[in-house]
């Protein structure tokens, strides 16, 4: 392992959070490309040698992660528990914030059709959503956005990795059927 790779390994080892390649370049006093090469080499090394930990790119940086087959002893040692499941209402609210961020409580409620005050509070308690300033509109409502922890928990390198919202649109057939049932039925029933 060359010198740069060793230094990058040392920095990432000590960090409790994902480290961006810019931070690594500054800390190691190296150019970006050298750091990127080192990251690739480091990741390959850990994978090839079958270590109990692996190097992953997540939440906008790089971090060591426990290999999935080694989780049990770590959980016993550290007393770590899997995070509680998220209810559909929380997931829905989280999806709206993730895709529309920064967004207001009112906008979330408008999309979901129900009050989202409780859901936003619960998501903030879990560290998945945070307040990020206020909107420039009358009333200056609070803006909400997702956190780094959200990216970590959902295995995302960054928000750009979220699936395209278009993918979840109803099919043309379903849309037509929905429209037909809402409007055309009225025509059919006209006396």
């Amino acid at each position, binding site marked *: 392992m060359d010198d740069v790779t060793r230094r990058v390994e040392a920095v990432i080892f000590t960090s409790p959070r994902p480290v961006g390649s810019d931070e690594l370049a500054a800390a190691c006093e190296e150019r970006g490309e050298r750091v990127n090469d080192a990251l690739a080499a480091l990741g390959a090394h850990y994978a090839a040698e079958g270590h109990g930990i692996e190097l992953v790119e997540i939440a906008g940086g790089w971090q060591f992660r426990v290999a999935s087959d080694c989780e049990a002893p770590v959980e016993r040692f550290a007393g770590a528990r899997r995070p509680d499941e998220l209810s559909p209402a929380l997931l829905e609210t989280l999806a709206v914030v993730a895709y529309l961020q920064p967004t207001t409580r009112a906008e979330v409620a408008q999309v979901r059709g129900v009050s989202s005050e409780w859901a936003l509070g619960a998501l903030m308690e879990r560290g998945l959503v945070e307040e990020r300033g206020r909107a420039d509109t009358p009333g200056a409502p609070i803006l909400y956005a997702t956190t780094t922890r959200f990216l970590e928990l959902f295995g995302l390198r960054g928000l750009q990795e979220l699936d395209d919202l278009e993918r979840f649109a*109803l099919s043309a057939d379903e849309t037509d059927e929905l429209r037909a049932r809402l*409007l055309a039925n009225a025509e059919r029933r006209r006396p």
Partner: protein
Amino acid sequence: MTGRDRGTATSVATAAPVAGPLDGLRVELDVFDGPFDLLVTLILRDEVDLWEIRVSRIVAEYLLRLADSDDFDLEATSHFIVLVAALLEMKSRRLLDVGGPFADELDELDDRAAGEELLASLLRYAQFKGAAARLAERFATHAGRLYRSVPVPARFQSAASDGPALPARTLADALGVLLEEPPAPDARHITDIAVTLVAELRRLRDLLVDAESFTFSAVAPRDRVEKAVTFFALLELHNRGEVRLRQSRPFAEITVTRGVPTRVDGPAAWPTADDDETASDDALAVVG
């Protein structure tokens, strides 16, 4: 629930829920996660004819959910009301003879636009619902992964602040001021209205014993509310026939003349149309 359910109310509570793997463990045991969820599921998955659904059931279900939850979002509920109203309007228009006597009113209400708006909301909601399901998949895969967790280094745990150090006693005294009860506000300047209807009736009657007539402005108090009470007393006397009221034109002086009582007790007699010396109620206007 499959197939059509004509004629009978589609019970929201018993319709097939959008079940997840952990239904029983969730704290909020909602069958549907909102009215849009409800509508989209009912229409698309359960293939229920929208026009057979009892909107009252949807509203009742929503009210139950509101009663259960602690927070109340005025905006979201208003939005729900608007959309349910659009739904109701679409349904109700079919009951009316379009083109008949109600045609003018209905021209303003565009059921197509209302339907399109409801459709757009439902489509948008459906997208996020799909995105949420995808997030659930990701969570199942990634949420259990373990990373390095490191506590705050000891040398940062007890960092001194840069600001001036104050003795604890000073801070406690400062906060203590906030905990004191504020003095009760002085309400002595607020008084009751000095004039009551009963008292005014008595006063005016006393005046009428001595004087056969007087003007309203001569006997009315300065305060507006008290003036109104006096005027009301005058009207009461007028109804009983004890006085006759005359006003040459609107907002002119009102002349009060002693009249002949038509009744001592019982309901007041209204002046008749041919009694043109007595001012009608419409022409009377309070001066000032």
